[in-house]
């Protein structure tokens, strides 16, 4: 277990293999070695740390393909994992799951929290958390980025393109289809 201390001085006992998905913490642990000393995270509040490390209920084991397994059954698949776990040891393995209820709940946090999570992900250096849930299509993990309308809705962004820009965008889309 690793002891983390947040910016508002809350302490969290967290599994080592979970926190090591953060490149920052992994490097810190390597530098410090085996130690009971708490790791300070001055740029992460407790509410945000809870959000990125909280496990979901239900499945309790992770199988070797990076999927969750219930202790009661052999092949229950669920992507219901905290985002910090998303960066599996072998990034090249494809995830085969669709968006989970947990993912959906996670993504519908309020705008302030979403912003805080992005900043924390950048600070902690968790690449999957930086982009996957926000910009990538959650329903189809291999489908790339979300459509612009979805991104606008998610981030409260207004389509402020001029007619000239709209025309250019139309051309770009045509090129992408034709090329």
């Amino acid at each position, binding site marked *: 277990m690793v002891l983390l201390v947040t910016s508002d001085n809350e302490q969290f006992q967290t599994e080592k293999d979970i926190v090591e998905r953060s490149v920052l913490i992994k490097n810190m642990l390597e530098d410090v070695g085996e130690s009971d000393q708490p790791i300070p995270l001055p740029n992460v509040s407790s509410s945000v740390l809870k959000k990125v490390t909280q496990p979901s209920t239900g499945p309790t084991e992770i199988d070797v393909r990076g999927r969750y397994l219930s202790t009661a059954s*052999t092949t229950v698949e669920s992507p219901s994992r905290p985002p910090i776990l998303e960066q599996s040891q072998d990034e090249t393995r494809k995830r085969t799951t669709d968006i989970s209820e947990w993912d959906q709940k996670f993504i519908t946090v309020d705008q302030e929290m979403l912003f805080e999570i*992005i900043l924390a992900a950048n600070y902690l250096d968790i690449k999957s958390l930086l982009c996957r849930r926000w910009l990538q299509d959650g329903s189809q993990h291999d489908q790339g980025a979300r459509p612009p309308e979805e*991104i606008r809705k998610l981030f409260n*962004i207004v389509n402020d393109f001029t007619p000239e820009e709209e025309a250019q965008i139309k051309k770009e889309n045509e090129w992408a289809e*034709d090329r």
Partner: protein
Amino acid sequence: MNLSSVNAAFIQHVLEPNTRGLAFSGKCSEREPNRTFAASCLKTISLHLPQVQLCLPLIAMPTIAVIGASVRAALLEQTERTRRCSKAEIERIIEESEREIISLQSQIDALVELRDSYRARVYALKHIVSPIHSLPVELLAKIFDLAIKGETHIQDAHRISHVCSDWRRVAHSTPRLWTRPLQVKLWKTGRVIDGLKAWLARSEPMAARVSLVSGFEDINREILEEVLRVVRRLGSLDLPITRTTPSWLVAQLEQSEFDGLEELHLRVATWIDPALAFTTVPRLRKLRLINFPRVPQTLVPWAQITDLTLSENPHDVTFGILAMCPNLVVASITTCGFRYHSQIQPNPLVLGQLHTLTLHSMAKSSYVTPFFSHLSTPLLQSLRVNFRDSKRSYWSQTDFTAFQLRAPNIAQLEFANSDDFTPGSLEATIRSAPSLTHLTIALCTGFDDSFIRALRYRDGVPPIAPCLQNLVVHKGHYVDVAEDVLAAMIASRWWTDAEFASLEVPPAVTRWTYVELDFRLGTLGSCFMGIVKHIPSHVLRYAKGHF
């Protein structure tokens, strides 16, 4: 007004041409925002019901019936009220009502306009206070970069740059978003050229990566010109040589100065013998050659090449090319196998710098191991042999053991997709790899109880693979090994820090850093779990459960 059972196309087709007078809103059955239509539409529908019916889908009928009913109700009401009125009086009421309608419409228009302006204000304010706008540009660009995936990178980059003008600006000023490999079809014309030009311009000044595709159609010189315009900063080039590839194209490319080219992929169609020579490629390090019929002596400055992939080339061409690359560090070779068991090669080819070797076997009823008989790789650290495309390939342990003597530094070994390994050959391989630290056996035979027993560490017995610390085993079937034997082997090479400190004599093997056991169709049960329960989950990963 609820028009939930009327589809959008119908509403647009029938109602919109009549938009005059009082407006009302109705939600149609499809995912369309509220649409506003004139009240006169009602009239139109009710008065011309038979005509409308002709073009209506059946699903729309109940709604029309409701509209008709409300008009009939008004008709009954007005009939009753004007029973004693003259025609002139009725016409006066009509005029008054129409004036009232116009007045109401004007108020509604004003209100709608006001509502829309408030809506726009709310959107704008939400946009302004949205935290996403507070993100530093560098972080936003980093997020964009992470969100763009290899296979869908063109769509991804476009989608991100089509969100709003701010994001578009950031995306367009981040060249690395536009540097992923781009396939260029050389026969395309028209707006494809403009799009290509814009795409390549956005990646400037970073290296562009281009894969040229030529077909049966004539090559469009304009599109080629666009590629040649960025030739000095091309980072990678994929060029197929087919019957239809014109010689002038090859000549033009050969004469170009590829100042930034780091990767070159050349695919040659069957029966083509290309005479190629890329001379100005000062940064070229990575080369991939597919289906070359002979050794291309002057193709590139061979001494520069450190990373080489050779596929579908005859063996003499493969070894001829390897012999020209004294500084090779990484090699990936495909072999179709050898017809005969090899004889001892008196002078095997020495690849003195080779660090990583991957061999893909496509052998069909033939030997794989003679490939190794031709090589000496004193610094080789990582060897992967993949039999995915093989069928009945033969493995000679004698050949391979002899090769291992010429490659004593192999630390990482991976075998995949073979049905031809025996526990004996696996054990012999491990015994001949004194530096082995990482072993992966994926979908191979041979990982059975006798091999597992050989790996087990016992005090006082000289161990095999004493430095082994990382073991990955993937099996494509049910657990076919004795769980207690497997667990005992795993447990024999694990101890806690406290246990280590209490030992009088330190173990002669290294402790595990990672073990992954994947039996695709089964899980390890309570017997296994009981023996290895003290090993942390980040060190030992396996599927648990019961049938």
